[in-house]
């Protein structure tokens, strides 16, 4: 049970390989290039393939092809590169194919910067591609969780035949923390009778396509997928509830900012302010039912994000405007300190009295 000191990016790569992922397609971009570097070293030693494509667009289409053939496959990039992949992601959704995509976010828009950010929340949870589509979005907040959620992502992707996006950030990708790989739990790869991997004349051919020219056929296809999203929402919401049950002020925060917010909650509690942290681990499906319930007991909500206020709108929808929801964040690559968050908590707390 020995721990290793490892970067978040490398932890994702190692966990992917241990999950049975044998195909990685990518294109370098800061701050996630260590993944390709790690894959390039390790994949050949396990009989896998790491390929540096000519572009992000090529890489996601290689993922599309590999996923259609029924293997565990992943790609990774950072914000601008993820935008380039969006067309391919939509096709993969339209074909109901499983794969894992990692976004180690950096500041935007445009080329933006290379420091940590959570400004792709909207893109990840609302529309990483055209069409009536959703992704399954996981948000790790430690390097150990980067590894575990990668392992989980492959299981979820296979179970529901949908792409799973891991939404990390530059800090989580670049930092080293101890990881216990022996503690990881893996989901065995299921049989994939739908895969287009050669029928040898022994079974009916499988067809994988996202093209449905007849409106009624496309509608049926989209409705069927919407049913799947309903099941996913019912069964797969994940979150961490840290001292929310008696909290007057509930902070909602994911990823790296959730850690900072947790420290602020502890400091607030030490001052006699009843604060709590609700950390969504799945951003899509969003833990709206949990927040809706907390609106019965909490007096106010505060969303802390590394952007100009994106998840805050999901929090507002979840609490149905029954309680005030405010926002605090930094953007462009800077992180707030726990003192900054504490100041916001104190401000809200003063307003409550």
């Amino acid at each position, binding site marked *: 049970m020995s721990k290793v*000191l490892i970067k978040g990016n490398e932890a994702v790569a190692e966990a992917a390989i241990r999950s049975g992922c044998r195909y990685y397609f990518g294109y370098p971009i800061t701050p996630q290039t260590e993944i390709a570097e790690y894959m390039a070293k390790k994949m050949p030693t396990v009989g896998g393939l790491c390929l540096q494509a000519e572009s992000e667009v090529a890489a996601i289409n290689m993922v599309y092809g590999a996923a259609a053939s029924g293997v565990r496959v992943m790609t990774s990039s950072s914000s601008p590169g993820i935008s380039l992949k969006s067309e391919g992601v939509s096709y993969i959704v339209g074909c109901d194919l499983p794969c894992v995509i990692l976004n180690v976010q950096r500041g935007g828009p445009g080329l933006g910067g290379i420091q940590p950010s959570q400004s792709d929340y909207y893109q990840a949870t609302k529309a990483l591609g055209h069409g009536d589509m959703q992704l399954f979005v996981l948000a790790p907040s430690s390097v150990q969780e980067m590894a575990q959620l990668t392992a989980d992502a492959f299981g979820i992707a296979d179970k529901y035949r949908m792409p799973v996006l891991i939404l990390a950030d530059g800090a989580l990708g670049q930092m080293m*923390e*101890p990881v216990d790989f022996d503690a990881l739990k893996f989901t065995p790869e299921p049989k994939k009778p739908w895969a287009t991997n050669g029928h040898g004349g022994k079974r009916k051919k499988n067809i994988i396509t996202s093209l449905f020219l007849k409106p009624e056929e496309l509608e049926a296809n989209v409705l069927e997928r919407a049913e799947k999203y309903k099941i996913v929402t019912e069964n797969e919401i994940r979150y961490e509830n840290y001292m929310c049950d008696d909290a007057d002020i509930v902070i909602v925060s994911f990823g790296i900012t959730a850690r900072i917010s947790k420290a602020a909650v502890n400091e607030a509690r030490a001052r006699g302010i009843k604060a709590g942290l609700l950390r969504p681990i799945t951003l899509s499906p969003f833990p709206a039912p949990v927040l809706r319930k907390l609106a019965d007991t909490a007096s106010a909500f505060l969303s802390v994000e590394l952007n100009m206020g994106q998840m805050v709108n999901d929090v507002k929808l979840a609490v149905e405007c029954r309680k005030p929801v405010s926002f605090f964040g930094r953007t462009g690559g800077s992180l707030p300190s726990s003192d900054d968050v504490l100041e916001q908590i104190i401000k809200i707390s003063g307003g409550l009295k």
Partner: protein
Amino acid sequence: MTNKIILAGFGGQGILFLGKKLATAGMDKDMNVTWLPSYGPEQRGGTCNCSVILSDTDISSPIIGSPDTLVAFNIQSYEKFMPRIVTGGKLFADSTLIDKHPERNDIDSYFIPATAIANDLGTPKLVNVVMLGYLIKNTDFFDRDYIRGVLTDSLPASKAALREANGRAFDAGYGYGE
């Protein structure tokens, strides 16, 4: 107890390595640790730094605004980070390359000609290990024998000469000023 350490200097001075040794030593003692490098459009000979946090409680952010310990290996790093050291904090500086002294009396300053010592030992690349010895001597981060073991054990047994050179550099730093 939480220690927030910034190590900074030129690329090639073994700064990231030094930070990793501290973080690994903390991990093996079951502490919570984070190690975060500066990353950017870096170039050879450019500046380089990393932030190491050692703590017995959860670490919220791996980013350090105000370090309680700064280990500076060049004048640029000294000028950038020295003013940010918390009151009561410690400055470690390579006096071979840094010819300034802080005009602050609220921090403790430790100067060692680490580059000169490493050169005299015939192992100029081990300037970081000389500094590690001096750092361990003047902080309560880790026990001397423990971290010396972490350092030498991380080198393969087949490279006995390298182990020996690292041990010697560490001891030179640890014994400096005695």
